[in-house]
Every structure is written in structure tokens, then in C-alpha cells.
């Protein structure tokens, strides 16, 4: 058992979770007190001792499922013992193949699933999920594909949408749900929840078989996913996007609290002459007790100019969201978005607390296309300069967001030169890895000449670091 646990901890560290020595020891002491047969309790104990941040929990759960998958209740105990043959029995798509329940047709299986879903009989569902995987996933030993592929193949055959519709239909026929929109909505959510459960069971089953085939460590490595703060903006999948979305709000709150606290504690301000003289009266006019003004927190004004063309759209969206969520830390936040035309979008963010809604409006309502809807930094910047040059002052930090891929248009980098003279700082955030800069039509160094800093900004961690620097002035 200790070996498994050490491998487990090793894998957690490999996935980027900070697990300290003490925590490791705690986990080992912890499992001595519990019944290793109960998987959920083992999960609780290991989770409580090894993971100290909720946002790492998903990564922990993945690793846990892999390492302890062989302990999980198997669809069919016989199959679990008798590994290779049984597991890969029902071959790809071929309905007549051997293996558990191989002679059921797709319709029959769907019918049985439907019944199990209606009564929410988890054991039965698990058994059926196992059958479905044998039949539809077409798993082959040693084949180097990820679990997602098998999952996709299985789920496509099961046709969850159809199941959902049929569940609704049958429930309605039997009058189990009230015949009004609200009842329908609740029922639908309920059924979707059940289907998610089924999906989870199928995933579990696939994972179990893959682990049996390839071994725990290899499997854990293939499933390793970046932590939310390390997800690359440019290549985030839909699920990762949702995760990022959720991570942003708490992150900005934490950051704002930290900055506010640091600002408060920073050294005292200038000498307050009037109050010092007043205090000196008590000592016969000797200024024995100097008084100081409260420090005036200098909050920079932020002007964000973001490229929102296809390739970098998601990066721009997160950064805008992040910066506007931190608005209390700055005296003012203004933002512009451009592709080849440019439009100010501050209005969407002001007077609303729903920042994701505002970002949605930016994407749909901002007027950013001038000629053909391909990025033209040069044109956008010169328009920005004409309209807003005067508004840039010693208090403003101007931040440009984009990959500087200019489609071989003129760079017009004199705009940045002129802005740099007026502004407190000019920064550039580039979502591309540093190695790609200045390759192809990227002309980042043309602009970098006139920036106070150019930063690679590929994930939340880098974004957070940048925002801390500017907010501290």
C-alpha cells in the first residue's frame, strides 16, 4: 500500500501540485486509521491531507481515479480478474463479438439504459456502461490513443441526446412531470444530471481498462492536464475555458485584497506641517512629535488596447475581464478593442457588475472591422492616436494586447513612440510563446522598441504576475 501511495504522491507532484513532506507523512498516517475498502473515504483522507487548494482538486481527482481505479467497483468482477481477454472481448463496432453482453443490439442496450436511468439504479448503470464500452469503444491493447477517443466512440453510439429526449417523453406520458415549463425545466435538468452520471461511469470504465492495459504510471501521465492557472489561453479547450472562467473571479478578489493590504501598510506619507505644529503646542512649541499625512495611494489609470481577431480573441477576453474585475485597484480602466478598425468598449463594462455579459457585448457589438476583418495593428493604432492621444497623461499606463501579427501591413510604430512620451508606462502583452515572436508576420520587436516592457502572457499565472506589477505602480 505504501508503494502505491508514494507513486501517487509522486504523480501529484508531477502534475504540478505542491505536496510537502509533512503532508505526505500525514497522508500515510491518515490511511492507517481507515478502511481501505471504502474508496470515497480514502479519497476524503488523501484529499484532506495532500491538497490544500480547491482549484487543484480536479487534478487530484483525476490522478486518484487512475491510481485507485483497480480498487473501484468493477462492472463485472469476473472481467476484472480475467483481464486481457474479457476486457477487450467485444471488438470494434462488431456487434456479434464475444465478451460481456456482446450479443445485445444497440437498441436493446439503449432500452436497458433507459430503464436503468429512469430508476437511477447505479449498479445496473455501471454494468451497462461496461457493456457499452466492450461493444462500442473498440479498445485495442497497446494502442496509443487517449481515453477521450474511446469515450467519444462509446458515447456516439449511445446517443445521449436521444436518451434524454426519450426519458422526457416517457416521463411526460406517464404524467410524472407537471405539464408546465417550470416542471419541464427541472425535469430536464434532472435527466441531464443522470446522463452526466452515466457519462462518468463510462469514463471510469474506460479508464479502468486502460490502466489494466498500460499500467498506472503511464496512464496518469497521459491524463495529466495543466492546472487552471497554467492553461494556455490560445489553446484552451471548451472545458478548460469554463474552468478558467471560474478561476478568474476568485483570483482577482484575492489579488485585490493582497494589493489593498500591501498598500495600506506601506510607509507613511509626507510630513503634515499643520498637524505637527498643532501637536508641538503640548511640548511648549517643540515639534517633538512629527505628524505625517496618510499616504495617498497612487492608483494608475489603465488603458487597455486589445486585438480581438480570431487567433488571440480568447486571450483578449480573459485579460479584459481580469483587468476590469480589478477596476477598484485603479483610478480608471478604459478599454479599446480592434481588428483593423478600433472601438472603445469601456461603456460595456461601466455600470454593470456582470463582467462576462460585458465581454459578450464586446464580442458582438463593438465596431472593429474597417476593411476586411484581418488584423491591421498599424491602422488601428493610428486611429487610436488621432482620437485619444490627448487623453493619455502621466498617470496612464497603456497596455497593448496582441500577437503583433500584422498581416504585413505597415506597423505605424511611431504611435507607440509618441504615446510612450506622454504616458507613464507602455506595456505589451503577447500571448504567444517567446520562441514564436518575430517569426512570420509577427513584428513584435518593431513595437517593443517603444514599450517599457513586453511580456509573454500565456496563462493566468503570468497574467496575475503582470497585474500585480502594474497595480503596485
Amino acid at each position, binding site marked *: 500500500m505504501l508503494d502505491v501511495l508514494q507513486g501517487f504522491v509522486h504523480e501529484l507532484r508531477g502534475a504540478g501540485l*505542491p505536496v*510537502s513532506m*509533512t*503532508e505526505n507523512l*500525514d497522508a500515510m*498516517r*491518515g490511511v492507517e*486509521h*481507515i*478502511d481501505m475498502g*471504502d474508496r*470515497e*473515504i480514502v*479519497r*476524503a*483522507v488523501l*484529499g*484532506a*491531507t495532500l*491538497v*490544500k*487548494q*480547491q482549484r487543484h*482538486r480536479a487534478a487530484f481527482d483525476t490522478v486518484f481515479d487512475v491510481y485507485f481505479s483497480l480498487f473501484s467497483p468493477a462492472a463485472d468482477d469476473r472481467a476484472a480478474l480475467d483481464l486481457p481477454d474479457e476486457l477487450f472481448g467485444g471488438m470494434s463496432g462488431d456487434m456479434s463479438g464475444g465478451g460481456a453482453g456482446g450479443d445485445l443490439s444497440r437498441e436493446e442496450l439503449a432500452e436497458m439504459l433507459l430503464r436503468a436511468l429512469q430508476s437511477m439504479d447505479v449498479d445496473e448503470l455501471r454494468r451497462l456502461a461496461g457493456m457499452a464500452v466492450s461493444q462500442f469503444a473498440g479498445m485495442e491493447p497497446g494502442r496509443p490513443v487517449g481515453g477521450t477517443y474511446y469515450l467519444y466512440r462509446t458515447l456516439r453510439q449511445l446517443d*445521449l*441526446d436521444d436518451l*434524454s429526449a426519450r426519458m422526457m417523453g416517457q416521463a411526460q406520458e406517464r404524467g410524472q412531470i407537471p405539464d*408546465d*415549463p*417550470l416542471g*419541464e*425545466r*427541472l425535469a430536464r*435538468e*434532472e*435527466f*441531464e*444530471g443522470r*446522463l*452526466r452520471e452515466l*457519462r462518468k461511469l463510462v469514463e471510469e470504465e474506460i479508464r479502468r481498462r486502460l490502466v489494466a492495459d498500460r499500467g498506472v504510471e503511464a496512464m496518469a501521465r497521459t491524463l495529466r492536464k495543466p492546472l487552471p492557472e497554467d492553461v494556455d489561453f490560445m489553446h484552451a479547450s*471548451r472545458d478548460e475555458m469554463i474552468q478558467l472562467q471560474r478561476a478568474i473571479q*476568485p483570483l482577482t*478578489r*484575492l489579488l485585490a*485584497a*493582497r494589493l489593498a*493590504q500591501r498598500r495600506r501598510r506601506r510607509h507613511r506619507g509626507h510630513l503634515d506641517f499643520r498637524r505637527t505644529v498643532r501637536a508641538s503646542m503640548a511640548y511648549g512649541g517643540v515639534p517633538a512629535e512629527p505628524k505625517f499625512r496618510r499616504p495617498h495611494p497612487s492608483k494608475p489609470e489603465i488603458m487597455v488596447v486589445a486585438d480581438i481577431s480570431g487567433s488571440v480573441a480568447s486571450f483578449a477576453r480573459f485579460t479584459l475581464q481580469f483587468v476590469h474585475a480589478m477596476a477598484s485597484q485603479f483610478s480608471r480602466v478604459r478599454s479599446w478593442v480592434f481588428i483593423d478598425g478600433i472601438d472603445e468598449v469601456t461603456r460595456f463594462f461601466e455600470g454593470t*457588475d*456582470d463582467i*462576462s455579459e460585458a465581454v459578450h457585448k464586446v464580442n458582438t457589438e463593438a465596431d472593429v472591422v474597417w476593411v476586411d476583418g484581418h488584423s491591421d495593428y498599424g491602422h488601428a493604432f493610428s486611429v487610436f492616436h488621432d482620437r485619444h492621444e490627448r487623453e493619455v497623461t502621466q498617470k496612464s499606463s497603456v497596455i497593448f494586447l496582441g500577437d503583433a501579427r500584422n498581416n504585413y501591413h505597415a506597423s505605424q510604430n511611431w504611435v507607440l513612440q509618441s504615446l510612450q512620451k506622454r504616458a507613464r508606462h507602455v506595456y505589451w502583452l503577447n500571448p504567444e510563446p517567446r520562441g514564436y515572436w518575430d517569426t512570420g508576420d509577427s513584428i513584435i520587436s518593431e513595437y517593443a522598441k517603444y514599450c517599457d516592457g513586453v511580456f509573454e502572457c500565456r496563462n493566468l499565472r503570468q497574467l496575475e504576475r503582470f497585474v500585480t506589477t502594474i497595480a503596485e505602480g
Partner: protein
Amino acid sequence: MGDRFESVVDVVTRLRGVDYLADPNIAGVVYLADKLEKPVLVEGPAGVGKTELAKAIAQSTGARLIRLQCYEGLDEAKALYEWNYKKQLLRIQADREHETSWEVVESDIFSEQFLLTRPLLEAIRAEEPVVLLIDEVDRVEIETEALLLEVLSDFQVSIPELGTIVGRQRPIVVLTSNNTRELSEALKRRCLFLHIDYPEIERETEIVRVRVPEIDANLAEQVARVVRSVRELDLKKAPSISETIDWARTLIYLGRSEITPEVIGETLHVLLKYQSDIAKARKELVDSPGERKPGIASAKR
């Protein structure tokens, strides 16, 4: 090693006995906290029963609950101990006539009877079983957090005039945090971590039934389902368990036995506290419950 609970199942049954329904995760961590004698750091959205958990543990083990409510500016004098300055002064004044030497006076005024114990010291010195609840620990400054470290890891404090006071027993310690700031690594390392989230429908239904005994099973389930639906919306502040319970009570007082869009419309303000949230939920559930935004919890992919 603590022996307040025999097994994880025992934790569940005993917490249930005081109307706290623990899921396997909560119960497992509580059991472990007792066995390993480590404090538990409980995190989660407001109103999911973090503080309630500490109270329930105290009640189910027959221990006294000692609570330290944290706030910004909390210091040693308020958390740990303080000398009773006024009483010391009186003691010195009362001594004037007797010409006692300073040594005698000093050893006298820095003795236990002039010590004002604050929650942490009180918990350490307690003879009877106690549960120590350090509530909203994320509100104190990082410096004050350091003060907790000695207490949490060794369960002792050093008072210069009296020496080190070691706890006579190891109570269960529960810290709660709303996660308004990141707690220090050092503190987290010393604790077991427990995240409590909004409960599943079945558990929430049960909670409602336990807390509002006069409700019938059907309505309780409907309440839980509507609340889940509301939580799926993108809100500033999703309804907490306590708000669910309040809502269930409201429905009982109003004599509703079924939830219709109209009933939701009338009572939504019990569940949600922001005007923008109420408007959004009203739009979604009352005006057009049939439509829904694509993408929310889509079962497919």
C-alpha cells in the same frame, strides 16, 4: 490519538443525531482530524454550514464550543490573553500601607488571578473537552496568522511572565475561511483541508426535511430542485443552504404546498439577495422557464 469517534460511520450517525448531515467527505475528514489530532481548515462558499459543522461536532461529542471570531486587527490581546491592568493597579494601590517589597508585588500581580484568558488560551487550559472554532480566519492579517501557528501545531502558548502553558488535551480545532485571501502555506500545511460545496439534491432535500420538520417530502424535493436550478445560473451570490431552509420555511408559512412560477416570483427575495440576481432568476425561471441558455451543463460534451 483522539478517540471521540469509533469510525467514519460513527461520525455520520452522531452528527446526524444533532441534525447535521455529513457526506462521506466531511465525515472522513472529521474522523481523521480526531485521529491525527490535526486542525481542520474548512473552506467553501458562504452559508454551506462551515461554522455549523464545528457546532455540530461540539454538540455530538458533548464538548464545549470555544469560538474565536476573527476580524481585521485582531491581536494577541484579543485572541490569546491579556493582563487585567485595572485590577493590577488596584492591587498595587491596596498595598501602599503595607510596605511590601516590589518582588512580592510583582510575583503577585503577574499571577493567574490577574490573567484575562481569551479564546485561544481558554481552549488550551480547558479541563473539560472542548471544540475550538476559529471563524473566518482569512480576515486576520498574515502577522496574526503566525500567532496561530504555535497554538495549532503544538497546542501550547508561551506567556513570558508565566512560562509555557501546554494544553491538557487535544481538542478538535476547526478553522473556517471564506477564501477572501490566500492563507499562508505554513498554516495550510498544519491543517487538514476540507472544501464544503453546495450539496447534492438528495442531501439538500434531507437537510431541508431535518431542519424544517413540518415540510412534506415532495415539497422538500421540489425546493431542492428549484434551488439547484437557480445555482446553475450565473449569479453574483448563489443561494446558500441556510437560504434554502429559509425559503422552505417561507413556503410553509405562506401555506404553499406546490412550487409554481408565481410562487417563486413572490418569494425569490428570500433566496437571493442582489437585485440583479433576482432579476436574472425571475427572467429565467418565472417569465420563460422553457428557454435556456445553451451551454449550461450540457450533458453532451
